């Protein structure tokens, strides 16, 4: 079966999403950043052709253009507010994160679209994720300066 994939904003929970998405490609075409790609057979035959976001390559910039164009309702069409998006949740690997190794770095904090809310710098100047505020856009995963990003998105829609 399929691995956990990061879906565009407003996506139904994975099982329903796979059943509802008709693989028409409209969300891919409407994305101005080229963030949305179509899953290949390597991702699993059941998800082939569905839209996925590879945050490390190009994250979602939360322009909110894709949910309204979905013809099948696999993306919740009415979703307009980016703070209500729940594509997934960022996780900081404290073992590899530079800031957690006492090197000054706040790339993820600085680039988070909900600056000071979804990612906060704690008293030791180390990033922590607020699960209530993080929308899972993946900008932090994209910007992390390490070869293997220390902050990654755990996909999972809760919209």
């Amino acid at each position, binding site marked *: 079966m399929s691995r956990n994939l990061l879906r565009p904003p407003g996506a139904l929970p994975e099982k*329903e999403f796979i*059943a509802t998405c008709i*693989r028409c*490609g*409209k969300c891919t075409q409407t994305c*101005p950043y080229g963030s949305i*790609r179509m899953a290949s057979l390597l991702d699993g035959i059941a998800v082939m052709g569905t839209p996925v976001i590879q945050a490390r390559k190009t994250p979602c910039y939360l322009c909110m253009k894709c949910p309204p*164009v979905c013809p*099948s309702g696999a993306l919740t069409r009415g979703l307009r507010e980016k703070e209500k998006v729940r594509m997934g949740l960022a996780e900081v690997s404290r073992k590899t994160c530079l800031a957690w190794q006492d090197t000054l770095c706040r790339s993820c904090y600085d680039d988070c679209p909900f600056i000071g809310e979804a990612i906060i710098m704690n008293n030791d100047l180390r990033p922590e994720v607020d699960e209530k505020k993080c929308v899972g856009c993946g900008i932090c995963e994209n910007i992390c300066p390490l070869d293997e990003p220390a902050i990654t998105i755990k996909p999972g829609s809760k919209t």
Partner: protein
Amino acid sequence: MNLARLRKGTQVLTIVLVLLVPLLNKKGITVVMGSLYSFAIGPLWITDPLIGFQTVLTTMTADRTLLLSMVLPVVLALVLGRVFCGWACPQNTLSEFVDFAATKFGIERPWGKGTTATMRYSVLVVILILTLLLKVPLASLLSAPGIISVQTAKLIYEGTVGLELGLIALIVLFELFLVRRGWCNYICPVGSFLGIFRFTRTLKVVFSEEGDHVCGKCLACADACNLGLNPMEAGIYPQCHNCGACISACEKMKADKKPLVFKF
């Protein structure tokens, strides 16, 4: 207006749009957007009726926007028959080319045999039942026009194509070496589903020798048929997709005396 030339025009136009729409989308012009599964012309949304119905089966809900977007193609089928297949579908255009090439190179392929309506509707029913059981949009994976248009967009956007295109390759090989026009004639679920929407007044090819309409029995019409049908016989529907090649080919007679006509 020359029927054959008009049809070539709409076939070429479809292919041009399949290429042009994603190119424009990539430039940020998204007035027309989507694929032959579902596309939008401004506020007007159009979805392949089979694809929409499949989603009703997988989700067990009836999304109003989705159902509304199926109305126009259903009305088109009710009025003009399966003209999407004959006049627009890129797979049909490709299949016609494959048939033309195979004939030119003398590759022997029989026309399929048996009652095509039974065959193609059985395939459709099996696909729909599997869609319902597996809760996976199987029809999307088997829609040749959808795959061709989406994969063209994928090529333009990502520089690669997906393995979905393997189906198109299989269809080409199948039609090139095994059964003439096998996919369109006996299998394609998109065409079968469109074929459901017809009634007594749907546009059809009618063979009639009443009045001045004289037939010379030259069989030019049957030779011209892209699907191997004989328009002089009854029962060419639901297989016939109103391409009009038979009517164009019926040249022996003066235009107003042709025994073959399109009729509602």
